[in-house]
């Protein structure tokens, strides 16, 4: 005689849900809590290195949207000076072609995934907005040599670190 069919099944179910009552909720409360993203993430943020850039404009040519505007002048020792490097993130589709196309490894994608702005002109990123800083670190996307130096990571929440 299987007692599952005489009410025991229901009791088992009730015991299971009661156990769930005392579990920690799996919800991530987004603005307060964030997932620690993988450092290989293809975030929608572009990082530009002033030292490595030669002003060749390969990135601008490879951009399917034409979102990169680059203006150069020639210096006295016959090198390009990048006077203007502007990316309109309103047009950018974050395809990463520019990162892959750059022959001097001057472009990287970052981790950030929060790009919403209140005004359209805020979406345009000038040279100064694209530099590496403490908040903006290059991810491993498109750069295998960067990727090998990064620690192994997953998308799981490290709650103790994240919770404020």
């Amino acid at each position, binding site marked *: 005689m299987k007692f599952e069919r*005489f009410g025991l099944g229901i009791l088992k179910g*009730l015991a*299971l849900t009661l156990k*769930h009552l005392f579990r920690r909720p799996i919800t991530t409360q987004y603005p307060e809590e964030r997932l620690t993203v993988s450092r290989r993430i293809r975030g929608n943020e572009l990082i530009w290195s002033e030292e490595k850039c030669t002003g060749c404009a390969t990135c601008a040519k490879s951009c399917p949207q034409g979102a990169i505007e680059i203006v150069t002048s020639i210096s006295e020792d016959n090198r390009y000076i990048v006077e203007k490097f502007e990316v309109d993130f309103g047009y950018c589709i974050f395809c990463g072609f520019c990162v892959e196309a750059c022959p001097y490894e001057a472009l990287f994608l970052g981790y950030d995934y929060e790009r919403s702005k209140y005004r359209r002109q805020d979406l345009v990123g000038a040279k100064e907005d694209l530099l590496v800083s403490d908040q903006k670190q290059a991810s491993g996307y498109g750069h295998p040599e960067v990727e090998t130096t990064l620690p192994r990571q997953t998308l799981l929440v490290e709650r103790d670190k994240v919770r404020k």
Partner: protein
Amino acid sequence: MTTVETGFNSGSSLASLPPDWPGGYWLHWGVFVIIILAFVFLTVLIFIWLERRLIGRFQVRLGPNRAGPFGILQPIADAIKILLKEDIVPAKGDKLVFWLAPVVAFVPVLLIFAVIPFQGGALLADLNIGILYIVAVSSVSVIGIFMAGWGSNNKYSLIGAMRTIAQVISYEIPMGLAIIGVVLIAGSLSLTDIVAAQNIPFILFQPLGFLIFFIAALAEINRTPFDVMEADSELVAGFHTEYSGMKFGLFYLMEYAEVLAISAIVTTLFLGGWRGPVLPPVLWFLIKVFAMFFIIVWVRSTIPRVRIDQIMGFAWKFLLPLALINMFITGLEVILLPEVLPWPIIFLNLAIAAGLVVLWSKFFRLGGGRVEV
């Protein structure tokens, strides 16, 4: 106020009851109308918040936690939202019936609380037929639901209302029979006397009766697993599809007030009402009501909805015969074993309940689907 002295309630008397507090016919009436209204509305707000939080935790979520600390203002925000919504009446609906339905559905639920004792003597009307009054009055809200289904001129509403009628009327029979078991032991229909008779809570004398009453009550108030009437995935929202604004608010209020009423009735009939050690009686009553509500939410979060044919089959083939047998056995015990000490009878009844449930599960089969041997 006399109780039949049997083995079940030997030594109980109403000597400990306070006098007719707070005194004076009209003053008593006015004070208790206000108390009941405040109690129902406040507890419904707490229930809505508690249910959403609890369901969230049962599903390993958090539940509402944005409005106020722990989301405690969420039901108030919901109420404001509902009140501010546009009040739409279907163009081809039956206007008068559509307008009257929420009132007809809600008022009987409020009326139930007139006879529920919050503590000894603290009730609006100490009717000597209290439980009969509850059974009679609670049936009226079905008419309101049917009026809503009819007046909406909407097929989903009508189907939802028809299902509700079939379900509620079917489950009233085992529910009434389960109540008769309690009445037999207590020897009175008055809720005050029934509570006063419970030196030992009747859930121990009537385990089968409690089970039948609880299941039937869940069906009666259309809670999961018997919520076919508003089965969101099949019927949009059942009988209140076309309702919005304050009229919908009244139906929403009715649902939770019914849950509160059922919790209070179960507390009074089976869990010893306001009686308990140490703490004040009102607090004991509230604790028991909230514990019952917790169990109802727990059941909701566990058991999936059953089909309409399963619901009807369960009422007529399973609960009704068991309720009849339970009534018969209780009657025999009251007549033949009045002087026996309570504990042998408690264990006898528990054994009978377990045996009958297993036996009837063997008999109980539903047409169609897979049948196991």
